[in-house]
């Protein structure tokens, strides 16, 4: 679960990131290093970027994948039990999130969407903080600066501009860290995402556009957003791109490292399309049976990101009972911690509604707060009186 425990991989200057294939348009070929059956296939360009991944680290990646799926399952359960208001499952997208997030350095900065809770886990964000916002207890779950990750963005695509601006700041500061932004296939249609590519290309900002093409934007299939590969969008902005098997944790790692390395060396932005699949509903409020074919789900189940790592470990003789037990135990512990963090989360105080709107006093708001405090006081029991109607 440690960020960058895998180091930076390869020798930067000689890496494939410098080759022509990466500078221009993607070939459209999907980068894959582990087949759905768990076979490690070699790829001369991308292999060097993961050659440092030890068996131990492979096991640790496996653990993360399992733990994150468990987080997802537990959160879904908490929602069903009324403990969370909503949850956007990442089921099926574990490899995309772990593979990319684990290549980041601590001083890189992440600008995610709402579905990137696996990334949040990799950044070391507390489980309670991850679900705070989904319980309705906060507008954002954590302090971005303590983990170098912004809180979830709900306005589709917005965060890609923030990442680009942040990267421009990195550049101004002369630092070699990178901003990475996560977004979906649907997001690529938004003006903001395209403007972000314009700015990133124009200023050659150290930013990585990480698109999880999970094939759906709520009920809309990806072909409604684009008839061609999502990765091909980037070339038109002069941004190199890669199309990678998003259910292959090693391929995702390799591609992300290519991109990070380019950014660190002043080579500007990169676009990664991680081809994956949203196995669950859009959120716990969604009913995908209304719009998608069960066969599609089956096809993708066969490409499951966890199963293939497991199979690879098995082939390598690493899938010991001990490992399985340890992973299971970790997942259980994490689920327990999350559940108890959720259930024991204290409710906010009524007057918190006025907090943090401004960083300095504001006369309009202060007056309203004063009036509302008096109003609450007029009932004797502040919190009780006001909560009575509201949600009618």
């Amino acid at each position, binding site marked *: 679960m440690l960020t960058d425990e895998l180091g930076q991989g390869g020798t930067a200057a000689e890496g494939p990131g410098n080759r022509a294939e990466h500078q221009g348009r993607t070939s459209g070929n999907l980068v894959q290093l582990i087949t759905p059956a768990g076979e490690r296939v070699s790829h001369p360009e991308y292999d060097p970027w993961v050659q440092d991944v030890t068996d131990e680290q492979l096991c640790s990646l496996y653990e993360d994948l399992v733990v994150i799926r468990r987080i997802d399952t537990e959160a879904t359960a908490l929602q069903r039990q009324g403990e969370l208001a909503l949850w956007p499952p990442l089921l099926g997208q574990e490899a995309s999130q772990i593979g990319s997030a684990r290549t980041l350095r601590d001083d890189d900065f992440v600008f995610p969407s709402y579905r990137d809770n696996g990334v949040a886990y990799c950044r070391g964000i507390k489980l309670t903080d991850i679900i705070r916002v989904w319980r309705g207890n906060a507008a954002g779950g954590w302090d971005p600066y303590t983990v170098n990750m912004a809180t979830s963005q709900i306005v589709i695509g917005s965060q890609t501009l923030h990442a680009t601006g942040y990267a421009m700041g990195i550049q101004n500061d002369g630092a070699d860290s990178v901003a990475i932004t996560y977004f979906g296939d649907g997001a690529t249609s938004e*003006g903001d995402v395209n403007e972000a590519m314009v700015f990133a290309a124009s200023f050659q900002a150290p930013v990585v556009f990480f698109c999880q093409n999970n094939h759906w934007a709520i009920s809309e299939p990806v072909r409604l957003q684009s008839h061609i590969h999502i990765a091909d969008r980037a070339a038109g902005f002069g941004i190199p791109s890669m199309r990678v098997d998003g259910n292959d944790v090693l391929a995702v790692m390799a591609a992300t490292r290519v991109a990070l390395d380019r950014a660190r060396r002043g080579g500007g932005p990169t676009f990664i399309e991680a081809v994956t699949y949203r196995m669950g509903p859009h959120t716990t409020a969604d009913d995908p049976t209304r*719009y998608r074919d069960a066969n599609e789900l089956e096809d993708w189940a066969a490409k499951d990101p966890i199963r293939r790592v497991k199979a690879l470990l098995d082939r390598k003789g690493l899938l010991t009972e001990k490992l399985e037990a340890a992973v299971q135990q970790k997942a259980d512990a994490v689920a327990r911690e999350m559940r108890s963090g959720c259930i024991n989360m204290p409710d906010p105080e009524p007057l918190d*509604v006025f907090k943090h709107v401004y960083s300095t006093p504001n006369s309009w708001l202060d007056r309203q707060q004063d009036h509302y405090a008096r109003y609450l*006081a007029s009932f004797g029991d502040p919190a009780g009186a006001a*909560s009575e109607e509201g949600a009618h």
Partner: protein
Amino acid sequence: MTQMTFARAINSGLRKSLENDPKVILMGEDIGALGGVFRVTDGLQKDFGTHRVVDTPLAESGIMGTAVGLAYRGYRPVVEIQFDGFIYAAFDQIVCQVAKFHYRTQGAVKMPLTIRVPFGGGIGSPEFHSESPEAYFTHTSGLRVVSPSNPQDAHVMIQQAISCDDPVLYFEPKRRYHDKGEVDESLDAAGALSMEKARVVADGSDVTLVAYGPLVKTARDAATAAADEGVSVEVIDLRSLAPVDYATVEASVRKTGRLVITHEASQSGGLGAEVAASITERCFYHLEAAPVRITGFDVPYPYSKLEMHHLPSLDRILDGVDRALGRPNSLSGREG
């Protein structure tokens, strides 16, 4: 008359518009197979086809801008904005294009767009799913803005909005989607009360209480509660937010001499300010107290565990009624 939910009543109104005018075309995200995230367009794509009920790419400015082009071509687009908080990406097209084409072309190009916006809070949703952005649009010349408060009005007013040659923002109080009511589907939209008219939904003599959309129910409940205390509250459902039917409000205030306005949107610069200012201008010498605003606070819409504090509740409205009447209230002893 049929019992149906608010959402169903809109659905049925949309269906009638699609049937009656081949130029009507629905556009939005997830409005097709899914039927919209609130199922308001349920079944319409199946019955009218993908050319009349169009799932669009995920781009609000694109939806609005292409709708403008379709209107240019003679269509009557009905655009769904999935949630109130996502209308801002389309703001430029609405304010600069939708609102101004008729003016810009000396009336040659009409913009009979209807923009449907599920709005308001109270459903425990995350950020951007509970906003009340109506004041941005009531301040924008060239637009009309309406909000129904009950299934029957919803059913009729959506048809009136679609048949209006001016662009109409149609704000749907999403926390009322599941409320049921009697709907007369045979009611002729042209014959029904114009969507521009306010309606007195409860007669009263002591104070005028103005509400719209989601809070009309709360306001009526407040009037009932006040009646128990011997206070007679006249409740007005604005229905049209731009222009406001001031004649109806004024007539009531001339009678009661007192005015309370309530909305979920933030107070400063909200529609309540406009109503208070205009009614004060129109009948200052009939007013016995300053108009009172009971509204959301000047804060971003809060996370759901706090929303009941932000939303005007029955009790807060009653406190406002007391203030307007000079009865003991939470601010007693202070002017305003």
